[in-house]
C-alpha cells in the first residue's frame, strides 16, 4: 500500500518548508516509505468554506480527490488536520449508498466514479469495497513506522528543548470520525517529541482551539486572534521554546497572530519540520525564514546547526 501525498493548499503556497520536510522524512534519506505524488489533487475542499455552505458540493469535490487515490489503491496521507477531517468525513458520508449514488451522479460529468478499493474477503472469492483510507501523517509515523524506527534515525537529539504541542481540533474530534488519539488525553505527538529527545511541556488547557478554523479567521480575525492569545499566554507561562502542531492552518494562525499581541513571539513549526531537524536535515531547506515569528532562537538552541 503506497501513500499518496496530500499537501493541501496552505503548505505548498505558504509554508513550503513543511512540504520539504515531509518529502525528506518519507523519502530515501529518511524512512524510505513508498510514496506517490498525485498531481491532480485539488483543494480538499476546505471545510470552513465548502462544508459550511453546501454539503453536496463539498462532498463531490472531496470524492473527486478520493477517486484519484482510488485509481492507484493508495492510502491518502494528509499533513493537515483540516484536509484529514474533510477527506475522512467524506469517506464516511460516501459509505451510505444513497449519498454515494447522488455524488457519483455529479462525478459522472467528469467521468469519475467513487467505488472504494476492492479487497478480497478472507477465505472466499468475494470482494468487498472498502472506503479509501485517509491517514494523517502523525498516525502514519506512529502506527505504521513506529517510534523505534524514528529514534534510530535521530542524529540531532533535541536535548533540552521545551516543546509545547498544539494538537488542533480536527485531529481529535469528532470522535465518531477520527480515532487517532484519545480526545481527552492525546499522546501521539507528545511521544514523537519525546523520542526526538525534546521535552513536551504540559500547559494549561492544552487542547484548546487556536481559533482559526470554521471560517473564523477569515470572518472575524480579532476573535481568532483572541483565542490564540489565550493559548499563547498559557504556553509562555511554561517557557516553551517552540510550538509544534500537526496542522498547517493552526501553524498559520499562530505564526500570524502573535504580532498582534506580543513582541516576543514563540516560533511555531509543523511536526514534520521538528522531526526533520532531529533527523539531520539541512535546516536551510525547511523554509524557516518564511515564518513570521523568527525561528532563529530555536535553531540557536540546537547543537550542530
Amino acid at each position, binding site marked *: 500500500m503506497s501513500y499518496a501525498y496530500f499537501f493541501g493548499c496552505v503548505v505548498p503556497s505558504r509554508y513550503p518548508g513543511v512540504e520539504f520536510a515531509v518529502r525528506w522524512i518519507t523519502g530515501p534519506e529518511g524512512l524510505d516509505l513508498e510514496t506517490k505524488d498525485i*498531481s491532480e489533487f485539488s483543494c480538499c475542499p476546505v471545510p470552513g468554506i465548502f462544508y459550511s455552505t453546501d*454539503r453536496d*458540493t463539498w462532498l463531490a469535490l472531496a470524492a473527486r480527490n478520493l477517486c484519484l487515490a482510488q485509481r492507484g489503491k493508495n492510502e491518502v496521507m494528509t499533513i493537515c488536520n483540516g484536509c484529514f477531517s474533510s477527506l475522512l468525513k467524506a469517506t464516511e458520508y460516501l459509505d451510505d449508498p444513497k449519498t454515494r449514488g447522488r455524488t457519483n451522479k455529479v462525478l459522472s460529468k467528469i467521468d469519475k466514479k467513487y467505488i472504494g478499493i476492492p479487497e478480497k474477503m478472507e477465505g472466499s472469492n468475494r470482494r468487498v469495497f472498502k472506503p479509501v483510507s485517509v491517514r494523517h501523517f502523525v498516525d502514519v509515523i506512529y502506527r505504521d513506522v513506529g517510534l523505534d524506527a524514528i529514534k534510530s534515525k535521530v542524529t540531532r537529539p533535541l536535548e533540552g528543548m521545551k516543546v509545547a504541542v498544539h494538537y488542533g481540533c480536527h485531529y481529535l474530534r469528532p470522535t465518531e470520525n477520527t480515532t487517532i488519539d484519545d480526545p481527552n488525553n492525546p499522546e501521539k505527538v507528545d511521544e514523537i517529541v519525546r523520542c526526538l529527545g525534546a521535552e513536551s511541556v504540559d500547559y494549561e488547557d492544552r487542547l484548546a482551539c487556536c481559533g482559526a*478554523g*470554521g471560517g473564523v479567521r477569515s470572518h472575524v480575525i480579532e476573535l481568532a486572534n483572541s483565542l490564540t492569545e489565550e493559548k499563547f499566554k498559557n504556553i509562555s507561562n511554561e517557557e516553551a521554546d517552540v510550538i509544534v502542531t500537526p496542522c498547517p492552518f493552526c501553524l498559520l494562525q499562530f505564526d500570524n497572530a502573535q504580532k498582534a499581541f506580543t513582541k516576543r513571539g514563540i516560533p511555531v513549526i509543523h511536526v514534520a519540520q521538528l522531526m526533520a531537524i532531529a533527523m539531520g536535515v539541512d535546516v536551510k531547506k525547511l523554509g524557516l525564514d518564511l515564518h513570521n515569528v523568527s525561528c532563529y532562537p530555536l535553531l540557536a538552541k540546537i547543537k550542530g546547526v
Partner: protein
Amino acid sequence: MSEVEKVFISGLHEKLIEDKVIDESQLDPDFRKEIIKFGGKDVMTCLQCGNCTGVCPISLKIEYKTRTTIKYCQFGMKNATLSTRWVCATCYRCYEHCPADLNPAEVMIALRHIGIREGIIPPFVKRAASNLMGHGLTVRPDESILKEREKIGLPELPQSKPDWESVKEEVVTIIKTTKYDRLLGIRGDEDVSE
C-alpha cells in the same frame, strides 16, 4: 457627595426599554425541519444543560451563547441566530461533551446553509469559492514563495504546469453541476485578492 448618595441618586435614573412579547409572528415553525434538512439533528433533543457553552472556546467572546442559539432554534426564532452562525470554529468540543447526543457544531453548519440560501453570504466565502473555480485551489502562492520552493529544491507546483487546466475544468464542472456557482453568485473569473 458620599458614595451611598451617589448610588442612590443615580439609581433613580432608570432607563426604560421596550421589551416586546415574543408572539407567533416572530416564530417559524418549520425552522426545526429546515435544520434537519441541512444536516443538523433534531434540536428538540437538547435539554439545555449548558455544557456546550461551557466548553466552547468562542463562548466568552460573543453575546449569544451556544446553548442560547440552540434554544432559539427550538423556539423557531430564526433571526436571532444570525449573529452566531459564522463565528463557530467547528472544533466539535460541544459534540464531544453533549449528553443528549446533539451536535451543536453541525447545527451551526446547518444554519450557515440556511443563511446562504437566503442570500446572507460572507464575502470571504465568495472569495475562496471564486478562487477555487478560477484556479482549482483556494490559496495561491506569490513570487517569493515560488522562489523559495526553487531554492529548497521542491518539485514544481502542479498548478504551474499546463495539465492543471484539466483539473480546473473538472472542478468547474463539479461546481456548475451542483449549481454552487449560482448559489453563491460567482463566475470564477472575478479578480479576487487574497
